[in-house]
């Protein structure tokens, strides 16, 4: 067991996933990477510890953020995990729907440096400004 922040990253673009994982590791966080929702749930079920935070892309190959959140919220073991959406598109409608489902932040991918997203994640997990 370590005190590193465990981030479950769900991103269907392999290249982006690689960049995210690299940066998270270098910044002292522990990335758990998956390219789809089903893989993510497999991890959630099998991992010894629940992740501290979920980094979620909205559009996934096997589902979308909305469906993922609904499934996540159903299980009391996971419903408390904070979720940050990092997506390519953020229509008002989607943003509102996701925030209503308990998502902490809805970020537009190209607008943020990884560093900035990690800062936001750390703040959410630790509950204080980094």
């Amino acid at each position, binding site marked *: 067991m370590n005190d590193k922040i465990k981030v479950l990253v769900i991103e269907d673009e392999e290249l*982006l996933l690689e960049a*995210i994982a690299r*940066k998270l590791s*270098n910044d002292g966080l522990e990335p758990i990477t998956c390219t789809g929702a089903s893989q993510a749930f497999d991890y959630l079920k099998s991992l010894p510890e629940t992740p501290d935070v979920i980094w979620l892309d909205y559009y996934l190959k096997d589902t979308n953020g909305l469906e993922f959140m609904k499934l996540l919220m159903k299980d009391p073991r996971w419903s408390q995990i904070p979720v940050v959406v990092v997506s390519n598109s953020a*229509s008002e409608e989607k943003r509102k729907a996701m925030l209503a489902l308990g998502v902490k932040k809805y970020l537009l991918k*190209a607008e943020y440096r990884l560093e900035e997203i990690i800062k936001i994640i750390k703040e959410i997990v630790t509950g204080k400004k980094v």
Partner: protein
Amino acid sequence: MDPAQTLVNEEKRLSSLYSLKILDTPNEERFDRITFLAIRIFGTPYAGIGFIDKSRVWFKSMQHFDLKEISRDKSFEKHVIENGEVFILEDAHDNPMFQNNPLVLGGPKFRFYAGVPLVMNAEKVGVLFIADRFPRKLTGVESVTFKDVSAWVEVEMLKNVVNYQNTQTLTEIQEQLTTRNRQLEEEKAKHDAMIENIGEGVIGINDKGEIIFTNKSVENMTGFSQSELMGKPIWTSLKMVDKFDKEVEVNETPVRNALYLNKKIATSDYFYVRRDNTKFPVAMTATPIVVFEQVLGGAVVFRDITKEKEVDRMKTEFISLASHQLRTPLSAMKWFCEIILDGDVGSINEEQKEVLNNIYHSNERMISLVNTLLNISRIESGRLIIDPEPTDLKKLINEVILELRPRLDKKKHHLAISVHENLPAINIDPKLVRHVYMNLLTNAIKYTPEGGEVVVMVSRSGREIVSQISDSGYGIPKNQAEQVFKKFFRAENIVKVETEGTGLGLYLTKTIVESSGGRIWFESSEGKGTTFWFTLPISGSVEKKGEVSLDT
């Protein structure tokens, strides 16, 4: 007498004669009665009425002698009109001028002849004469009576003119009416053919909203034939629904509003329901028909915009696709650059860092260009959400400035803000208006040389809130002032100074201001600076339930 003048007079005389339209007409009792009376009064066997044509004398009436016309030269009448007053020849045998006249030598063998000119329009056009085989005289009384009788002839001649003019006028009017009628019919046929065959559906209604006309396209599009629709109220016979399939209330239909508000209504928000209960989207205009300030009815013109809607949908799809597909590689580049620049994959030297920074910034430009293009597509699609909420402009401006502070400081600009103290919260979409301040201020900072002055002023003027953003920058060349708000325009003088820029900012800004109910304009002096003003109505922006928002 001057021969030329004689000719002119003769022309006038002939024109007066011809205006009677009497030459070569059949005998008429009204004239015959006069000549008959003359022979009874004066006891002569002969009397007649002759008209002096160009080279002949033509007799309208003649008693006891059959003569239709005679050569003017040989006529007695020629002498009557040349003489002027009553002409009396008591005995032709005594007068060498008449001794050998054919009418003296043969035929009726005149010896006595008296003629009085018949005047029309002050011209002597004819003669009333009496004649006898024996010489005789006319007493003074007879002479006067003779003139009276001629006056009667003139009255009859006058009737001719009046009658003719009446018939003439009537005929003319009739002819004009016929021509006009034919023209109208031709025009109507043309219009009917056009209206019948154009692609748009055309429905005419009376002031009660009852259908009085439909063309072929109405039937083609709706499936209802003309005979099915005629006479029925348009609101019930052609069902209209909105995009939620809800039937449009009668007092919300464009047609009803056009009639009752007496103005043209154009909309693309509704669907018509066909005879088979399927529906199709329509773009329609409803126009009141107003004659002498009274609404007599209306015309509805519509077309099926299924294809346009489809293209629209495809465009939206493309935008979302482009946003997704373009942003993924842009994000990847951004993040991998970041990883190298941060030294996460090994240290890099200064030169490498510089090159990578160039890549990073180019990529940032690309991201911003994609964002702007997407915003423009959204605005142009007309589906932008306008979601007004009471907004404190001062707070909004301060937030924008906070974000721009690093850039302001970097260029050592001096910033002055003056916001009207008692500015009410204004009902606008803060996300949209934020764009306007952000864009105008970014421009002011960007296009002003270091150490410049940027001023933001917000004041109230009547029913508007006016925001002013001034700078002491490069200014806009006068000859390019008109293009400032055009898409992709960048002024000559700043292209050299600031290579970065899409030329889309002010276009987007203007579009946002106008969709928020405001106006935008500017003044500029090259080398001295520029001031932009934009207004927002105090009454606020009108809410619009769109489908897309900016920056998403």
